């Protein structure tokens, strides 16, 4: 089965083990990853077009803002945006930074943690985090959980969308559409281990042959690492690439209310009900004896 590559690891809003999880069938000893080498991105937008084509979305209307960016922002039917930034270095020289923005497919996905709808967000054993719009209730809690500000809401259908890492293609043994379309070899796809190896070699190459001595890999550990990784010119300053967070983490409020607070609340509800039952068993009801009334009313 080609889809044996997509085995469910966990799903959102579900008590107990997700159906189909850990079935053993098609279990993999590797996870997949996309590596984006921003140093070789020429901003051609082939990946954006391939993404739209594969997912069947029309090209959106946009506004020209005097930059090389196609859209002001990601949209519910625009999963993949090359963010353009003109960066001024300390020595007043300019540099154009192009970064392919989209879902990072976190190993610890904040969207999945925050989602209350059973099975609306799925994490596969190969690392892909996918939204299942059939189960989505449109509450947008995923938006609060995402440290990268990725999920986008479609107000018409009340469903949230984001990059699927082409789970449908990957499930059939193909690379994501964006990777297939990339003409410069800036995008790579394979097992996460292979992509880490590749990134390590590329970073060493950049450091050796260029002036980017702080080049490095972006695989943030605050979210358990990601299945979309960057090679950056300057790993100390990811914010320069259009707001890539330096140390992304699932917001602590989400962790707090989805974790200890929820259990405290559940306990309080159960304890409250148990308390009333115990009170009834110990003290019983308040009954009013009607004798007083009778002496006045009855002849």
């Amino acid at each position, binding site marked *: 089965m080609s889809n044996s590559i997509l085995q469910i690891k966990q799903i959102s*809003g*579900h*008590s107990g083990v997700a159906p189909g999880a850990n079935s053993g069938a098609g279990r993999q000893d590797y996870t997949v990853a996309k590596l984006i080498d921003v140093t070789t991105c020429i901003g051609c937008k082939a990946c954006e077009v391939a993404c739209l084509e594969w997912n069947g979305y029309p090209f959106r209307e946009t506004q020209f803002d005097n930059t090389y960016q196609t859209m002001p922002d990601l949209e519910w039917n625009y999963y993949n945006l090359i963010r353009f930034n003109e960066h001024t270095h300390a020595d007043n020289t300019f540099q154009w930074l192009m970064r392919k923005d989209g879902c990072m497919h976190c190993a610890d996905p904040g969207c999945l943690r925050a989602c*209350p*709808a*059973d099975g*609306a967000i799925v994490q596969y054993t190969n690392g892909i985090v996918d939204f299942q719009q059939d*189960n*989505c*209730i*449109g*509450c*947008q*809690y995923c*938006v*609060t959980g995402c440290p990268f*500000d990725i999920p986008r*809401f479609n*107000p018409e259908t*009340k469903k949230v969308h984001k990059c699927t890492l082409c789970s449908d293609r990957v499930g059939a043994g193909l690379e994501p559409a964006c990777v297939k379309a990339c003409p410069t070899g800036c995008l790579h796809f394979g097992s996460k281990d292979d992509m880490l190896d590749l990134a390590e070699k590329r970073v060493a190459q950049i450091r050796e042959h260029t002036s980017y001595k702080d080049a490095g890999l972006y695989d943030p550990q605050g979210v358990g690492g990601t299945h979309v990784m960057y090679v950056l010119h300057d790993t100390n300053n990811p914010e320069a690439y259009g707001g890539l967070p330096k140390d992304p983490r699932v*917001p602590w*409020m*989400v962790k*707090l*209310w989805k974790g200890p*607070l*929820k259990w405290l*609340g*559940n306990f*309080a*509800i159960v304890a*409250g*009900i148990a308390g*009333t039952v115990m*009170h*009834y068993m110990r*003290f*019983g*009801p*308040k*009954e*009013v*004896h*009607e*004798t*007083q*009334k*009778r002496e*006045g*009313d*009855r002849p």
Partner: protein
Amino acid sequence: MTESRAAIRRYTMAERLGHWFAAFVYIYPLLTGLAFYSPHFFWLAVMLGGGPTSRFWHPWVGLLFAASLLWMLGEWGADMRITDADRQWEKAINHYIRNEDDQLPPVGRFNYGQKVFYWVMLFAGTMLLFSGLVLWFPEVLARQAHWLLLLAIFVHVGAALISIGAFIIHVYMGTAMVRGGFTSIVRGEVSPAWAKEHHRLWYDRVTQQAAQTPPKS
């Protein structure tokens, strides 16, 4: 309840309808809200028509609950002010819990516990309303304001839990514990003995009024 002629009217028809309207528009967001609160309760949303349906109606019915609170503020706000008699009663609340009602000081139309329940629900409802409005349309919030969503979820959950605690006690006392209470909010009447036992000051007031002016109906 053989002497129905002697029964005292405790709640008007409007008050009873208002109470049950409030109960309905509280319970629907409660059940759907529990579904969004925990995966262990998500089956509630399934039973009530599915997640998306529940998500659609939850805020609308919540608005009706806010409206019912506003109505209750107008209807009962004055009655619910905490008086000196209530403070005396509060000091003896342990006797109430132990059903030693003969050791309690007399109170008016509502006792201290009922008043606290009322104000707790009003407070929690206000919190739920404002946090809920933020959560209703997160898409209109600017990206920089997303911290507000986190805060709103926290406040919404916290206020809901407070109201659930109050609601559990309210339902228990209104049905199982205080006999006659449930009938009073359905049929609107209590026996004079009940009124005397639980709300002596109110009983004295209404019986004196009744003695002075003939009852309206």
